[in-house]
């Protein structure tokens, strides 16, 4: 749970893997992809938040989630908390 050496690429890759695990197609995933269009729903996003918390120690609340509607915004959020 180091908060020092996590690169953006690493966060992106972890989030992408999680989304694929949730059922999204890897080719459809990019910074601008909306969770809704990836068929990633609120239950999946809670799991994504749990993964982020477990791996990086970053907490994402339900309130935070409301504004994080794309993959890029979620990665930005985690990156900002880690810097």
């Amino acid at each position: 749970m180091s908060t020092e050496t996590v690169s953006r690429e690493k966060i992106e890759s972890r989030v992408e893997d999680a989304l694929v695990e949730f059922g999204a197609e890897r080719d459809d995933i990019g910074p601008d992809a909306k969770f809704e269009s990836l068929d990633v729903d609120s239950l999946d996003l809670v799991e994504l938040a749990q993964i982020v918390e477990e791996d990086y120690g970053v907490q994402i609340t339900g309130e935070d989630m409301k504004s994080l509607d794309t993959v890029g915004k979620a990665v930005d959020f985690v990156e900002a908390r880690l810097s």
Partner: protein
Amino acid sequence: MKRRVAITGLGAVSPLGVGAGPLIDRWADGQSGIADGEGRCADFEPTDHLSRKELRRADRFTQMALTASGEALAQAGFNGDKPVPAERTACVVGTGIGGIGTIEEQHLVLEHKGAGQVSPLAIPLLMANAASGSVAMKNDLRGQCYGVVSACAAGAHAIGAGVRMIQYGDADACLVGGSEAAITPLASAAFGSMAAISPTGESRPFDARRDGFVMGEGAGALMLEDEESARERGAEILGVIAGYGATADAHHLTAPEPSGDGAARAIALALEDAGIEAGQIDYVNAHGTSTPLNDRAETEALQTALGDHAADTPVSSLKSAIGHLLGAAGAVEAVATTLALSRGTAPPTVGWEERDEGMDLDYVPDSARPLEHEGDEPLRAISNSFGFGGHNAVLCIEAAS
């Protein structure tokens, strides 16, 4: 007048393979799917049947229900443009325990990682109605939909619920079934503590040496339809559920009432619903768990309900070949009974050798036997299911004519 209920699709996932075909072929051939004292569905590869997203959102019992239902729906022609409006198509799937694998897994997460890491999918996966809800969602069935929970009678109760909907006109079609995936550490230990499970790992229904049941898993599904409209649309009729009866023992949490009175009353009700006499039954698909108490009480019940005709009627238990599928048992057994009737065969009680004192019925030892009777009436069977809690559910099934 009640509407008649036709069976237009069958599906199964069982220890004998994936599909209704392998179930009846292998059982009629006297084969067993039990290995190392368990009836696991070793051939069931969930990724062959479900998408990544579906898999993640389904406990194993729901995965099996989706697969068996898919087979039944496809056979009935419900996999594309549906022959019956979605709003008139219902869905009822029973289970004994539901997603116990998920409960055990998520309890470990709670213990080791804390409440914050417990999956938000835990409840929707473990709930006992997850199978029925998921089947309706995947296949766009919009009529009544719910789960049925009555331990080892759940599969038969689910079918009975669908039968009543169609008889009464609440629905024109209903996907019914049962599903169970409870070969888990907790469930196995718990059944073991009750001394319900066979210590020798042998499923020997009605045999003098029987010493408990063998845990099995799987799912069965049937597409039921109003017979008249199914015939009008040219559907292949695989059989008819002519009657259904259900009662309670009100006796003991786990033991059957020894005289089999509750079971006998359920059989009598099923025959009455079908409008037939005991003498018109050609075959009995027994609950036959291989426990000392069930098999004796069931024998008593059959003698009470069928009278003198009981001695002349072949009685066999599918559990001899696949173990006890708990909440899926009644559904898988109804699938097998339907196919046994359409093939005109009584599959054997696999491994039956030693007669127990006072248990004098014809348990179809050794190998399958042709079913025949005089006249041109269709072959008829009853399929019995009884559950912990004292639940009794009996279906009267008729071969297609």
